[in-house]
């Protein structure tokens, strides 16, 4: 654990540079370049806004729907994009195995970080839109740092697991994208927990993404401390620790073979 952290510290520049490279490659070929990092999620948001404004139950939220939706979807999108990208990371960075003396377990970090750059840009725009809709600044906004850290940790554990396995079992990527699509509906992005009867709410909070998505709202809208939903928080950390351990175990076992398989 100690050597892991010191190595992470010494490799930090390399990881950041490789993430920047990844970020650049993603956008370099398009005419609009970096603008897509903004246009794509905004377009998605507009579509959801159109669709769900009709469907939603008007009773549940005191906030304008766009504010509610935006504050929730930002965190979710980061998570789901990062999961997808980082699951591919061992494959897409396999050229590096020959070149760089970088601990393999840092490779998913590169993808997560590169997605995180986009996330920061989108978050900036989201906050701008919130301000336009009359949501004021609060010190609770800085609580986002906790939720970002939390998403990072869950992502690290999960993608150690998925990125190592997908090298052997390619089919996994389809399962993940189906899974994330299901999670989109199981997480309170366009719906509200109060729309469900009291006795079912606990089950919805088992979903670890509940803590993240609601957490972004706690920070941006509700101005509640991050521990105010104990059950969701507990479930999140149980999942996160579980995946960190399982992910580390699986990755450790499989990574020596990457050079032969990836």
């Amino acid at each position, binding site marked *: 654990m100690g050597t892991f952290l010191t190595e992470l510290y010494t490799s930090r520049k*390399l990881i950041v540079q490789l993430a920047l490279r990844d970020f*650049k490659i993603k956008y*370099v070929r398009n005419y609009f370049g970096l603008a897509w990092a903004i246009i794509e999620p905004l377009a998605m948001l507009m579509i959801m806004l159109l669709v769900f404004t009709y469907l939603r139950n008007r009773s549940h939220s005191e906030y304008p729907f766009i504010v509610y939706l935006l504050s929730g979807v930002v965190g979710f999108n980061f998570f789901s994009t990062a999961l997808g990208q980082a699951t591919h990371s061992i494959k897409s960075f396999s050229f590096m195995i*020959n070149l760089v003396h970088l601990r393999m377990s840092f490779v998913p970090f590169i993808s997560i970080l590169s997605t995180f750059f986009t996330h920061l840009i989108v978050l900036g725009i989201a906050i701008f839109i919130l301000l336009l809709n009359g949501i004021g600044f609060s010190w609770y906004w800085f609580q986002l740092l906790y939720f970002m850290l939390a998403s990072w940790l869950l992502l690290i554990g999960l993608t150690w697991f998925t990125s190592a396995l997908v090298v*052997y*079992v390619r089919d996994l990527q389809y399962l993940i994208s189906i899974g994330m699509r299901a999670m989109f509906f199981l997480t309170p992005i366009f719906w509200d927990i109060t729309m469900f009867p009291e006795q079912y709410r606990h089950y919805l909070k088992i979903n670890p993404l509940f803590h993240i998505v609601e957490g972004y709202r706690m920070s941006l809208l509700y101005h509640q401390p991050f521990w105010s939903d104990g059950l969701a928080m507990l479930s999140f950390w149980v999942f996160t620790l579980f995946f960190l351990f399982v992910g580390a175990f699986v990755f450790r076992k499989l990574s020596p073979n990457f050079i032969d*398989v990836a």
Partner: protein
Amino acid sequence: MNEEAQIKLKHVIKQYRLYNSDTTRLVHTLFPFGKSRYKSFTALNDINLEVGKGEIVGVIGRNGSGKSTLLRVIAGVTAPTSGNVKVCGTIVPLFGLGAGFHAELTGRENLHYFTIMQNFDNYQSEDIIQQAIDFADIGHFVDQPMRTYSSGMRARLAFSISIFLDADIMILDEALAVGDAHFKEKSYEKMHALINSGKTIIMATHSEKEAEKVCKRVILLQNGEIMQDGLPEEVIKFYRASIKRNAPANKKPINNQRKKKIETPEED
């Protein structure tokens, strides 16, 4: 070799496991107990090798004889199954033609990231990159995306950046195979200059002419073993003779069974 050994390999063995499928490999890697269904392929068999500072060593042998695996083991890219590898100094490995370069980035950008990947500090990397660009001499293509390059241009750029990174040891795997005569000539000169300044070079090559011209010492690998190790003329003579003698041996099944993905994976 009077100099102290800079690279020292002792009883190095590298075996690859050939599984019937990725699934059996996965299961056996995760739970390594019980009898498993894999065949071992010995890519390197009991290699003992010492290379001193300032030496330039060529490695020759047929496809699948273990050249690349040997270079990989020396570069520390892959660990030997057993045995001991000791290397003093920094290494720049160059496997494949421009592996690590991305087609969508320009030559200059690729060089930038390449130097970073080799862990070189930023403050001097601009100089190094400029020198490499001058040496590669590919004109205005430097600022074009790499997908517009010919394979020769890519190789030139990759080779140039490797020699200007100023590592103690350079490992070249077929680095000059596609360069034109003029560039090769220029590169040989540069390599000699590097050797004279105390660098060590190990290069795998299929060009006997190149081995004879550049190297002071040549190693012949065959089925993962060092068959010959000595002066270029003698080793090459032996190699030529053995090719003639064993020409039908090519059809031995062992050669077709080479592990699946040993080539440098290209980025897409």
